[in-house]
């Protein structure tokens, strides 16, 4: 009996798979995209996130594709309104308990959506080339320093601790004297390959793309190279909101902040590894910060943005399925937590979706202590057995876990330096 062939139909297209294959296997065979978050390749399915729901035409029931076995004669649809809404609701439920923001408030407030936290980190390690490219990414419109009203500083969470990080100086970094000593060629990205890669990266992470347009853009190099990025940025800046099909960035930005005002007990969490120095005053007030001043000031940034902001399945699907973070938002939120016991990785439990991928990896790789589910029900969480430290729990596979984590719950501490 084993080894026989199973014929199923997905979205009207027939496909034959081996017995024991799942509906997800069959869909992938056909190149049909089914979102997954708890799915771990080559491991037994866990079936927890429920974003892979598909519809069984015969029973009208929803099935999780990742673990439902393909059965002969099955007809599956992945493209119905019911499927779309079910996935959207699953994502909204996950978002309703998500403690953590994709972006820092500064970036959300910036009219050009400049990636200020990343810029600050580049400046902090005196990586001027990266800093420059981050700023270039934000153009147009490159606000001149005269026009920049620094809304970022008004919303900076450092205000709640002492004073905001001074951002305005970097807002116009391209034209400032912060980097006069650097050779000019370092500041210019000449290589078109780089440009293309950047363009693709931006497209793949830009917020308002639907899956389909993103797919098309990524297929079409010309499209990327032909500076449509700028149009996207224009949208991002809210200049052409009406014309965009997807949710506007403004809508996204409005939805994205769960953390809002910090609770008092969160100050120490956010201030860990952050310079406690007070705001740097430029020696030359008219000329702006000198390089060392800028570096010192940048070290005051609290890293409000998610370390996985550009590599997060939850965020990507939330955008693709137009999931509204507020839909099921209850009263308060849980406090933001950050577990820093491990040298290489961070654990932010508030972002965990309990998919158990990390638990399964530690089990598979025979970590001596590993990770486990603790408790049950709504309060179930992932942690080290007997409340041991993360460093003990993840001796071998910390980076694997961080990489496989579908959200920012487990992430590499320091961003890769290029």
């Amino acid at each position, binding site marked *: 009996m084993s080894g026989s062939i199973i014929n199923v139909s997905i979205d009207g297209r027939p496909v034959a798979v081996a017995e024991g294959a799942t509906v997800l296997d069959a869909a992938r065979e056909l190149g049909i995209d089914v979102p997954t978050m708890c799915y771990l390749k080559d491991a037994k399915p866990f079936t927890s996130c429920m974003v892979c729901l598909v519809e069984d035409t015969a029973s009208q029931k929803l099935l999780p594709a990742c673990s439902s076995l393909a059965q002969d004669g099955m007809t599956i649809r992945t493209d119905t309104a019911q499927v779309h809404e079910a996935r959207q609701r699953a994502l909204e439920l996950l978002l309703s308990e998500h403690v953590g923001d994709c972006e820092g408030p500064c970036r959300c407030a910036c009219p050009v959506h400049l990636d200020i936290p990343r810029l600050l980190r580049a400046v902090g390690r005196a990586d001027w080339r990266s800093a420059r490219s981050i700023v270039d990414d934000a153009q147009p419109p490159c606000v001149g320093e005269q026009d920049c009203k620094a809304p970022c500083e008004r919303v900076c969470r450092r205000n709640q601790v002492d004073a905001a990080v001074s951002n305005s100086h970097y807002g116009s970094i391209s034209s400032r004297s912060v980097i006069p000593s650097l050779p000019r060629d370092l500041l210019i990205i000449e290589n078109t390959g780089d440009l293309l890669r950047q363009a693709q990266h931006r497209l793949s992470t830009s917020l308002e793309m639907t899956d389909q347009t993103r797919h098309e853009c990524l297929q079409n190099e010309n499209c990327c190279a032909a500076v449509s990025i700028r149009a996207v940025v224009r949208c991002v800046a809210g200049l052409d909101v009406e014309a965009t099909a997807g949710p506007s960035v403004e809508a996204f930005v409005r939805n994205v902040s769960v953390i809002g005002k910090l609770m008092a007990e969160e100050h120490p969490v956010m201030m860990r590894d952050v310079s406690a120095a007070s705001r740097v005053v430029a020696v030359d007030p008219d000329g702006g910060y000198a390089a060392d001043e800028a570096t010192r000031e940048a070290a005051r940034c609290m890293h409000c943005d998610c370390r996985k902001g550009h590599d997060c399945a939850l965020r990507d699907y939330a955008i693709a399925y137009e999931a509204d973070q507020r839909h099921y938002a209850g009263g308060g939120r849980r406090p933001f937590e950050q577990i820093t016991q491990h040298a290489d990785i961070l654990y932010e439990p508030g972002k965990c979706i309990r998919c158990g991928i990390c638990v399964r990896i530690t089990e598979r790789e025979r970590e001596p*202590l590993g990770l486990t*589910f*603790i408790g049950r029900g709504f309060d179930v969480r992932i942690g080290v057995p007997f409340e041991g430290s993360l460093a003990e729990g993840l001796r071998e596979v910390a980076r694997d876990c961080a990489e496989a984590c579908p959200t920012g719950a487990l992430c590499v501490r320091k961003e890769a330096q290029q």
Partner: protein
Amino acid sequence: MSEIDISQVDAIIDGCGTARSEAITILTSIQDCFHYLPQEALDRVCERTDCTPAQLYGVATFYSHFRLQPAGAHRVKVCIGTACHVKGAGAVYDAFRRHLAIEGDDDTDADRLFTVEKVACLGCCMLAPAVQIDRTTYGHVTQAQVGGLLRDFLAAEAQRAKADGSKVLRGAGVAGEVRLCRCTSCEAAGAGAVWEATHAAIQALHLNVRLQLVGCTGLSFEAPLLEVVGEGGDAFRYGMVRADDVEATLLRHFQPAGLHRRVTTRALRWLDRCVDSFEEHEAPFRYAADIRETIASPYWQRQDHIVLDGAGEVGPLDLTAYRARGGFEALQRCHARYTPDEVIELITASGLRGRGGGGFLSGLKWRQTATAAEGMRYLVCNGDEGDPGSFMDRMILESFPFRVIEGMAIAAFAVGAGEGIFYIRCEYPLAVKRVREAIQMCVDAGLLGEGLTLRVAEGAGAFVCGEETALLAAIEGQRGMPRIRPPYPSEQGLHGQPTLVNNVETYATVPWIVAHGPDALRQLGTPGSPGTKTFALAGRIVRGGLIEVPMGTTIREVVEEIGGGVGEGHTFKAVQIGGPSGGCIPARLADIPIDFDSLHAEGSMMGSGGLVVLDDSDCMVDIARYFLAFSQDESCGKCTFCRVGTRRMLDILERLCAGEGRAGDVEELEKLGGWVKAGSLCGLGQTAPNPVLSTLQHFRDEYEAHIAGTCPAGRCKALIRYAITTDCIGCTRCAQHCPVDAIPFAPHERHEIDDELCIRCDTCRQVCPSNAVIIRSHNPRS
């Protein structure tokens, strides 16, 4: 932290074995030994067994029975099952905490004597609210009795330390027999004390009478029920017997050895009573005004006993008596006359459907297991009856263990299983004990046949383990998290082998079918649902207990004829059938027959058969909130829709009950309930919205009322206020009993309630002799 004796842990490991699958057994034994799971013990287990730290800690934190912090010397478990909830268990729980001065997140008093916890359901619904202290269960507990109850328990503990073991009196040439059930709920009603008193009375009066332990009659409303069989064989039943009634009762039927003894005893008893009456004594149990109330015949007329056959007559562990009534003949007939295939045919032809809730055709399941791949096959009896408001499986296991064993042995023969496992929840210690003993007796008598071993696996407190894939995970020593089906357990079950999982009642029906033939079962019940079904009848009802009726009996017949209707002055409003997976059926639909399909059509389901009757004093939004809170608490936390979805539904319901409902909440609740149903992985999540959706369907006006700021039934604390009318006679009882001193002491005057202090615990209303305490609607927004 105290050091522990590690050799005890070693002894436990030696006894249980070192396999991963023994994790729960090992942890249960450690907890029994130390009253919690000490870290050193867990380290030792990791060191000496195949259990990994991740597995062990995952399991220890999953099951509610386990605790990682030291507990008090005694554990007080307040049942918050459905019937207990409607009868005020929440207030009793609060009263225990107040009495023991336990505050905040603590659960243990300062002396570390008592730990107070909530428990899903003790299965003593007719004696609600019920409380279990260690292995003693108390029924009808009121807030005012909490202190007395703890004293009573400690006194009994001291007694127990002194008492000797032997209890059963057996004499030659007995003139008569006295029968008493000591199942968990009868014990809760005081059967233990009655037993002791009977034993003492028989000895003191030198009566030639045998005291016989019997299986439960199911008449929980009459418990403890003493049956006296005289010399002539005439049986008399006495309901709600108290220990101090026993002597007089016995004397009514049997002559003591001598006249002078009789006179002395009577005189002494009279003296005792005089002394007792001087003490202000609130007994832990309540009794009806007429304790000699005869057993109403309608209670029996409607019933048909298959699984409860022999109730009140046969001793639960009396194998001879069970066999004398034809026990084990069905099994022998299978072995002698039928092939396994013929047995499956027989079960299929009877149309038997699984009694655990889903109503899947048993014959089909048996067939699938029998025809699955070669190799070891397992048999599992699902006795994880976790639904609040159900106690059928407990009573069957406690009172008729041989019947279930016989059913399992027949099934094992039919599907070719080599090992059978009873999975019984740890909240049913007596069931575990009796089944273990019964298995041993059957083994000793050589009744099980070649190649079948039976054993008991104890649950550790997780409702979700009633779901078969979660149950199998628990037997394998894992967290009880369900997995997707297919593959069904009949194909890949325990340890990946074909496994037949049936409910207790299903197995208990099997011997009868084999003995009487498949057509006999179809004579009972309806075409779609043949046979009988047991129900745990409880809630707002005069006569509650365990009943067994043919399928197709109407709700009205059960409530009004068998149950005697709701109490005086109230109107029947709805029945909640099937616990957290079922729904509420309103009184106007009470004429629908109870069978799998009719209930399903009304948005409810059979579940395992909890039937809680509600009257006009019950708030349907509160009931929905109660069940959802239960499901939410018991969710394993695996899939998004159940883990987060039920929580978001509960958020809305809590808002409604707190008078903070918003426009659109009801619609959102309905929609979200639909998604949780459609998108959850297992039966728990797929049915968890039923109590909400069915009340929304039938009682939508109550939801709307809550949004408008009123609770029509006057139950939701935020929407009511207590007041004292001019009927107050100034007796001060309310002031004395108020736990928060919200009623100033004012003898002979009309009392007043300070609303700021009032916690709406309802004590004043319960103790008021002149019904002067009333509940007023209070809209927090106006």
